């Protein structure tokens, strides 16, 4: 695949490295000569020096035969303009990175259509989503977002005292349009029917809109208890801390942010309504004590400095915080921290660039059906689009003979997404997500053809 990457900063370089390993043809556009030289030395990619928003530079980089264009520089203006003009110049898919506040503005204005982009994302936001996954669902093993974040996939374990234990699926009283996709019992993974009774130790995969899954969450909670407000402490009110706090403001969380800079505090106070701001240095043990950090359920370290993040997590853990999550910017550290996590008492380490590249990788994965995730037991979650004249178009979900071992879990039409019900009619242009067992893979791909 021919891939153009604009900007060889933290994220651009990492993407180029990852994609080069997968044998793609990559051209990197970088304005800074020194950075460009470094890329040229370290990676087997072509490097073009110049302003990525200039047509001549894009032409030189080979935009006319480009399959995917990534605008990943630190300037969102350059990214958006470059991606926007790359499309008419011949790029088949265009993706632009913006700052978190621009992505927040998407509620007000449709930047994607306006600029002709396929995907607009903020790496701060993606990292914040990763952090939030740990916080929103502490008892969940895996959380993935599909259908542009509108549908969530959660894997959760059945504990002996949780309400769902010992009940058949149809007795659970799950909200409408929430589906149990699969059950893992011991080594065996299967797609259950309504009569399946859940037993202790099962791992179930749930699909549904985020808010609906939150409704269902008490059924699977470890203590079987009611939903109390979760106490969260965020260390560092930078872009990542802010994005996370904004995400948590919608839910049942009591959030505190430690920010040492007074000016930044003033800015945050304008952007956050329901979050408590503490103007204090989170690395100071006295300050953490003063704010009773030990009583919190979660401590999230989200500053620019990996060392501070890890060390404050250890301190918070010492004070009695139940779970710690940290941001690690250097990918090598992230692996080490994750591996040592259990010993250190750190629930998870999130690396913004790893999270971002994982998110972006799907654009280079393939054409008809993109594999989003592969779950335990080889279950694939795949995304596909119903083309014009497809035999599936115009039929209801119930009418179609889905292969045994496959399940439709999400349907996106325009800007809305839901878990499809039996009576829904499929149309050309719908983007569907299905979960398929390895045994059903062949039959399923035949159905698509």
């Amino acid at each position: 695949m021919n891939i153009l990457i604009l900007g060889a900063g933290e994220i651009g370089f990492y993407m180029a490295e990852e994609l080069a390993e997968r044998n793609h043809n990559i051209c990197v556009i970088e304005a800074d000569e020194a950075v460009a030289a470094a890329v040229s030395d370290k990676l087997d990619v072509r490097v073009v020096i110049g302003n990525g928003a200039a047509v001549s530079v894009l032409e030189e980089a080979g935009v006319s035969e480009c399959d995917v264009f990534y605008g990943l520089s630190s300037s969102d203006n350059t990214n958006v303009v470059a991606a926007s003009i790359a499309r008419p110049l011949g790029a088949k898919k265009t993706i632009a990175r913006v700052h978190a506040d621009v992505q927040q503005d998407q509620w007000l204005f449709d930047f994607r259509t306006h600029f002709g982009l396929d995907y607009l994302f903020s790496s701060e936001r993606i990292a914040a989503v990763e952090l939030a996954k740990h916080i929103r669902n502490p008892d969940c093993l895996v959380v993935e977002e599909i259908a542009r974040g509108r549908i969530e996939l959660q894997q959760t374990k059945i504990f002996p005292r949780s309400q769902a234990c010992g009940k058949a699926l149809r007795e659970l009283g799950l909200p409408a349009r929430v589906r149990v996709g699969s059950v893992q019992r011991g080594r065996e993974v299967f797609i259950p029917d309504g009569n399946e009774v859940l037993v202790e130790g099962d791992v179930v995969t749930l699909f549904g809109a985020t808010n609906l899954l939150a409704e269902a969450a008490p059924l699977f909670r470890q203590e079987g208890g009611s939903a109390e407000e979760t106490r969260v402490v965020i260390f560092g009110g930078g872009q990542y801390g802010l994005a996370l706090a904004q995400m948590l403001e919608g839910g049942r969380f009591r959030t505190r942010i430690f920010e040492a800079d007074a000016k930044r505090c003033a800015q945050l106070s304008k952007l956050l309504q329901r979050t408590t701001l503490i103007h204090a240095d989170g690395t100071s043990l006295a300050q953490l004590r003063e704010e009773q950090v030990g009583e919190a359920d979660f401590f999230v370290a989200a500053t620019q400095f990996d060392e501070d993040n890890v060390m404050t997590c250890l301190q918070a853990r010492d004070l009695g915080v139940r779970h710690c999550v940290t941001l690690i910017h250097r990918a090598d550290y992230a692996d080490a921290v994750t591996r040592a996590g259990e010993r250190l008492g750190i629930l998870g380490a999130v690396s913004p660039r790893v999270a971002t590249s994982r998110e972006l990788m799907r654009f280079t994965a393939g054409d008809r059906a993109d594999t989003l995730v592969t779950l335990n037991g080889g279950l694939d979650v795949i995304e596909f689009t119903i083309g014009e004249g497809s035999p599936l178009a115009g039929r209801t979900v119930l009418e179609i003979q889905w292969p045994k071992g496959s399940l439709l879990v999400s349907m996106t039409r325009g800007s809305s997404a839901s878990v499809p019900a039996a009576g829904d009619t499929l149309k050309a242009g719908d983007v569907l997500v299905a979960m398929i067992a390895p045994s059903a893979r062949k039959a399923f791909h035949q159905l698509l053809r």
Partner: protein
Amino acid sequence: MNYRLLCKVLGLLVLLMAVSLLICEVYGFFLDHPGQSGAHDFALARAFAVALALGGVLVWLGRSTGREILRKEAIAIVGLGWLLCTAVGALPYIFCMPSLNPAAAFFESASGFTTTGSTAIADLNVYPRSILLWRATTQWLGGMGILVLFVALLSSLGVGSKALFRHESTAQIGYGFHSRIRQTALGLWQLYTALTVVCVAGLAAMGMSFYDALLHSFAAISTGGFSPRNESLMFYSNAGFDAWLCIFMFLGGANFLLMVRVLRRDMAGLRREEEFRTYFGILLAATLVVGADLIISQGAPVFQSLQWSAFQVISIMTTTGFVSADFDLWPHLSQAVLVLLMFIGGCTGSTSGGIKVGRTLTFFKTAGQQLINAFRPSQVIPVRINGNILEETQKTSALFFMALTGAVVAAGTLLISLLEPQVSLVGSFTSVTATLFNIGPGLAEVGATKTFAFFSPPSHLILAFLMLLGRLEFFALLVLFLPSLWRRY
């Protein structure tokens, strides 16, 4: 200080007064009949002649100067302009009733322009109707602001018009729709005039004579409170009049720029508007408390109590000062509630006086923040009004204003007690609050059915000064005493 410019602008302001006097004279000529008590004596015409001459001289003195007003001149124009207008406005009373002390005439005029409504005239019936018309007109002019009118009418004042507006009106400029201050001023006066017309029409339709309706409307929408009747609204004891006037007093005490927004169907703005909600809430709560107090301790009928309590609460909180029941005879709790309302006053950007609901809100929110910070010093607590975070300077100025108010009330009470040994403490205290907050009636010696006529000339001057201080919110008047304002360099 550019003295020529000062003369010119003040001259124009006096000419504006002359025009108003002339209009009142024309209407007044047809109102007064010979033989009736208080025959027409051309007092307004004589005052018009003086104002015309004075204005002419001032404009001539400042003939060869540009029109650019700087901050320094602007604040001096506001302070001096108000003093000058008050003096010119006092002329008709002196011409009409030579026996009236000039200090009392100045008091009466200040009470008009500042929309206070306290009166130094013991018996209104001896005055011709034209004078009473002028008395109400001064309130109407002062309500929205003489200088706001001035800014609205004169096109080429430049940036200085912003400063003139800011020192006279409590309306926040940024709140308006127009980027040009002249358009904002014009919009405010249009709305103000339109409301007055509706008020007059309503009262006339309910059977009040056009003259009485006009005067009461002038006094209601400006939250002034001058009535052409000695007994104020008790003269009619008509629930319809009371209710209709309540509506317009209420509107007069609300933010006019907010009303402009609502008229433009900006309902989202109204929903966010915290000050208006608080204003309405306080009125409602005070009405219920006073009403309940009247029912319980005086055994008054329920409907009557609520009617009285609503009218008095609205009249006092909006700093109008109309009276439909003698609250001097009410129980102490009700009186205490009314005194509290005197302090709070209406909304910012209204025609009312007092500390203003917005400042009171700021005070309490800041106090809450300070209390929390006492045990949790590192928490950043933004103080929000209408969802916007207040800057430190806004908080400081609100708190400073409240402190200054307290100091002035204390000093004023001291002075009045010194000058008027026969007046009770309640009387001297409420005479100060009633004038400083531009309300009108106080309690005891200056109660609902009494007047300020018995005060000595020095006290009249002090109280008139307090009214001007309250109307201009201290600064524009106090800076006049600083020598550095008057230096050329």
